[in-house]
């Protein structure tokens, strides 16, 4: 359980800033630091988390010209997808009953970690002709 709690916030913060290599390094460093601090009976699970973090690649979706790119995405369970709005108009990411971003102004981001397999259709609640799908395997 601790393993999931540790990993998730790190990735989330990472997504909110940017997915640059430097941030990634920092996030991993932070995770390792936590690992050291909290090392105890949960040790084995924490180890697993680090392996998983390295294995599942996080993915970006860009919003340009009122379009999600890529609009169709297939990812592995555990992947964090980060959307970045590069338009001069705000957008949202809404998957009915699953997740809902705040309004993202220009350069705003939203990240969601997909922990369950399935097909997630989403759209922009302000411009509903903008639609996309994340398939989680």
């Amino acid at each position, binding site marked *: 359980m601790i393993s999931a709690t540790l990993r998730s916030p790190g990735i989330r913060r990472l997504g909110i800033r940017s997915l640059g290599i430097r941030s990634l390094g920092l996030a991993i460093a932070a995770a390792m630091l936590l690992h050291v601090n909290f090392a105890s009976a949960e040790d084995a699970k924490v180890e697993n988390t680090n392996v998983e973090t390295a294995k599942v690649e996080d993915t970006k979706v860009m919003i340009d*010209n*009122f*379009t999600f790119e890529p609009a169709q995405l297939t990812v592995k369970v555990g992947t964090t997808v980060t959307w970045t709005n590069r*338009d*001069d*108009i*705000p957008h*949202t990411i*809404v998957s*009915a009953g699953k997740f809902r971003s*705040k*309004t993202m*102004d*220009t350069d705003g981001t939203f990240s969601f970690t997909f922990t369950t397999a399935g097909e997630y*259709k*989403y*759209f922009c*609640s*302000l*411009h*509903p*002709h903008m*639609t996309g799908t994340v398939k989680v395997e």
Partner: protein
Amino acid sequence: MSHHDHHDDENPGVSRRRVLECMTWAGTGVLWTVTGGVPRSLGLVDSAAAAEPAGMTFLQISDSHVGFDKPANPNALGTLEEAINKVKAIPTKPSFMIHTGDITHLSKAAEFDNAERIISQAKLDVHYVPGEHDFIDEEVKLYKERYGKGTKGAGWYSFDAGGVHFVGLVNVVDLKAGGLGNLGNEQLEWLEDDLKGKSKSTPVVLFAHIPLWTVYPQWGWGTEDGARALEYVKGFGSVTVLNGHIHQVMQKVEGNVTFHTARSTAFPQPVPGTAPSPGPMKVEDAKLRGLLGVATINFKQNNQPLAIIDTPLQG
């Protein structure tokens, strides 16, 4: 200035709809008069505005996007102020003003406050309907706190002025994935009921943010269930539909219904299909004010013509 007529592309050769679409794009505004369903341009805005208007006159402003500061217009509050100064300079005081939504860009309290500070300088009653940009605060309450008094549902209402029945509709909430603007069943039932018992000779004005007619579905410019609203006004002799959202003047006449969209006071958007997206259009600084503006609508009682004058901030 350029304007062109074209027929409904989806139904080439179909005369059923008797569609005549005119678009005033850049430059000076045009006075439109509608006789027998065919709009006719009477002249340039300056000479039109100089003529003494008879009957009731009201104004439409739209899409102020207060808070917008991107390259297409780094000072949307400033151009709103210019628009209000134009309004103040109109020689015959209009009866009131309608604002067809997107007062703010991000629904921030300060944006609403700044908009109110400027718009109130016109010293006119203002009847608002919300745009999607006015409903994006976390609790979705700032618009309703300010403009929702006496309205139903998400903010719809009607009122009478100068013998005309005005209906403000909300088509920016509960939008469905892949769809267009949305009125919803509750509002449509209310509208049907609201129009019941009105004499068919009463001129009706419907106003809402997103066009009630399908302008360009690829960009979401239309209202999913707008046709149902138009069904309820079918028997009325004179119906005018005023919208915003698309940041450019477009006009269409279909039978007894005149459709009109207003310019934004903040930034222009591209003509449908001429750009990769409907996003803000960056134009040369010198051209911006020719693409922003306000509209004056004049009802002449006991007379057919209806005149809509679109005035850019700078001709």
